[in-house]
C-alpha cells in the first residue's frame, strides 16, 4: 500500500539531486520548506543560457542582447500567467521574498506617516518582522501583532478588533513556514480592504503547494522566492497592483530604473522597471520561467493531493512515537510537520537523522517569537514536496526511532 505511485516516480525522475547519497545512505530530502530541488529542465536552461546566450538585457542592439531580453521578458509573462496577474508590469523581479518585503517596507513605507499602523502576525518569519521594525524606527509607524491560538491558527477575532482607519497595511504569511498553518487570507484581505488597508501576502511557502491567483485573491501585493518553487536562488517576485505600484517611490537607484538622468533632475522609468535598478539576475528570471514551465507540464493536482496524503501519513506515524508533540495542528495545513520528542534537543535529533541520510531542518526556523510563544528552543521540521513518497516517510520514521533510542 506504500508503493510510490507512478506519477510521483515520474516527477521524481526529473530531479537529479534526489539520486544523491549522503553519508553513504540514499538521500531523503525533507527540507523543502527551506528550498526545493531543481528539475533537469531548470539546470539545463541555466547551462544553455551561459553557453549560448549570455548577454546584458534591455538597451542592447546586438543579437544576443535581444534574445536575452526577450527570454527574460517572456519569463515575466509566464510568471504573470502562472499567478493570475492581469498585466506584466505588475510583476517585479526581486532577489527573493525577503527583498520583496523590504521593497514594500521601504517604498510604500515612504508614504506612511507617524501613527500609521501595520499589522503582522505572531507566526511571521523574521523577514516579515524586521523590515517593519526598521520602518517603525524610521517613520514612527506602529507595528501590531495579531495573536495566535495554541493550535497555531490566527486569532481572527483579535485581528478584526485590531483593524481601524489607521491600519495602512496588513502584511501576513499565507502559510506558516514553521507550523504549516494555512491562513484564511481571503477573509483577511476582505476585512482589511473594508478599513482601507492594503494587504501584502508572504507567499514564500504557499507558492510551491498550490495554484495561486492574485486577481481572485484581490491582494495588493504577493511576494515569493524562485528557489522555493523549483527555480534558482537569488530570484523572486513581487506582484503589486498596477494602481498602487504607480504611486510608490523607487526602491533603489541605478541603471535600468531611470527614464532620463541629469545632475539637476532625474526622471524614473515606468513600472516594473522603476523597481529594478541595475543589471538583474537575468538567468534567475529565465530559469524561474523554466521551473513554471516544468510545473505546467505535470499533473500538479495529483501531485498536490499526494503531498496532503503524505502529511497525514507522516503525522499518523509520528503520533505513534511516545512523548512526541506536533506544533501546528490546524485543520488547514500544508505538507510540513514540526515536532519535538520529550526533552530531547532538536539539534541532537537533526544531527542523528543527517547521519542516516535524512535532511530535515532543526532550530527556530527564523521564527523566534513563535518559539517564545510555545516556550521551546526550536523544533524538528520535515517538509514535503511533490517528489517525496511514503517510502521516504517510512525511512524517516525508522531513522527517527533509532535516533530517539540512542538519545534516550
Amino acid at each position, binding site marked *: 500500500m506504500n508503493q510510490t505511485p507512478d506519477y510521483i516516480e515520474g516527477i521524481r525522475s526529473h530531479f537529479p539531486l534526489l539520486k544523491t547519497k549522503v*553519508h553513504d545512505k540514499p538521500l531523503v530530502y525533507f527540507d523543502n520548506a527551506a528550498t526545493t530541488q531543481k528539475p533537469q529542465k531548470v539546470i539545463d536552461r541555466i547551462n544553455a543560457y551561459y553557453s549560448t546566450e549570455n548577454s546584458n538585457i534591455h538597451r542592447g542592439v546586438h543579437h544576443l542582447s535581444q534574445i536575452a531580453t526577450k527570454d527574460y521578458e517572456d519569463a515575466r509573462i509566464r510568471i504573470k500567467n502562472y499567478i493570475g496577474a492581469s498585466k506584466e508590469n505588475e510583476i517585479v523581479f526581486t532577489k527573493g521574498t525577503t527583498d520583496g518585503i523590504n521593497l514594500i517596507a521601504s517604498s510604500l513605507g515612504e508614504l506612511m506617516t507617524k501613527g500609521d499602523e501595520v499589522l503582522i502576525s505572531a507566526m511571521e518569519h523574521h523577514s516579515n518582522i524586521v523590515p517593519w521594525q526598521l520602518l517603525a524606527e524610521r517613520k514612527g509607524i506602529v507595528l501590531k501583532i495579531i495573536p495566535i491560538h495554541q493550535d497555531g491558527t490566527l486569532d481572527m477575532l483579535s485581528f478584526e478588533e485590531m483593524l481601524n482607519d489607521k491600519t495602512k497595511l496588513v502584511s501576513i504569511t499565507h502559510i506558516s513556514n514553521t507550523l504549516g498553518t494555512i491562513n484564511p487570507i481571503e477573509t483577511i484581505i476582505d476585512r482589511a480592504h473594508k478599513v482601507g488597508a492594503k494587504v501584502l501576502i508572504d507567499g514564500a511557502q504557499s507558492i510551491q503547494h498550490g495554484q495561486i491567483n492574485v486577481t481572485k485573491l484581490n491582494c495588493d501585493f504577493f511576494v515569493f522566492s524562485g528557489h522555493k518553487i523549483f527555480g534558482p536562488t537569488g530570484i523572486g517576485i513581487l506582484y503589486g497592483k498596477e494602481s498602487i505600484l504607480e504611486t510608490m517611490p523607487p526602491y533603489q537607484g541605478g541603471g535600468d530604473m531611470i527614464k532620463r538622468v541629469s545632475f539637476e533632475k532625474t526622471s524614473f522609468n515606468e513600472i516594473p522597471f522603476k523597481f529594478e535598478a541595475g543589471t538583474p539576475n537575468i538567468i534567475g528570471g529565465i530559469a524561474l520561467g523554466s521551473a513554471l514551465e516544468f510545473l505546467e507540464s505535470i499533473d500538479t493536482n495529483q501531485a498536490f493531493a499526494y503531498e496532503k496524503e503524505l502529511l497525514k501519513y507522516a503525522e499518523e506515524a509520528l503520533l505513534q512515537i511516545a512523548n512526541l508533540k506536533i506544533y501546528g495542528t490546524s485543520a488547514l495545513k500544508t505538507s510540513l510537520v514540526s515536532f519535538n520528542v520529550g526533552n*530531547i*534537543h*532538536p*539539534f*541532537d535529533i537533526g*544531527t*542523528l537523522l543527517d*547521519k*542516516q541520510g535524512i535532511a530535515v531542518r*532543526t*532550530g*527556530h526556523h527564523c521564527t523566534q517569537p513563535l518559539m517564545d510563544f510555545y516556550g521551546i*528552543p*526550536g523544533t524538528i521540521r520535515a517538509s514535503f514536496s511533490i517528489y517525496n513518497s511514503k517510502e521516504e516517510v517510512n525511512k524517516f520514521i525508522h531513522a527517527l526511532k*533509532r535516533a530517539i533510542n*540512542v*538519545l534516550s
Partner: protein
Amino acid sequence: MSASFKEKQDSIIEDFQVFDDWMDKYEMIIDLGKDIQGISVEKRKDEQLIDGCQSRVWLKAEINNTRMHFSADSDAIITKGIIALLINVYNGEKPETIVKENLYFINQIGLQEHLSPTRANGLLEMVKRMKIEALKYV
C-alpha cells in the same frame, strides 16, 4: 607540545578508530556527554553563555596551581558530548598550551563539520572562548 596534551588527543583518536558507523561514533559522544559533570541550571550564569544558533553552551573556566580547569554544559546532548571531549583534552593543561598548541583530534575523528563557522552548535565559539579564558592567565 606537552606530552600529556598530545597523548590525550591521540588516545581519543584511537578510541574513535574502532567505529566505522557514524551512529556508533555519536553514541560514544552522547555517552561522554551524559557522563561529564555539567553546570546545574541554577548555577548557570549569563556571562558563561555561548549562544550558538541552535544549541546553547555554558562554559566556566578556573585556574588552579597554574593549570586550567573547565566545566561546561549544553542543552543539546551531542554538543555536550563534544564539549566533554574538549574538556578532557584541555583540563589540567597550562594556559600557554591551550593558547598555542594545535587541537587536531577533532579533524582526525571526523567531527570537523562541527567546527565550521556555519555550523549551528557554537563549537567553534566554544574553542575560541576556552582559548580566550586561558589567555587571561598567560
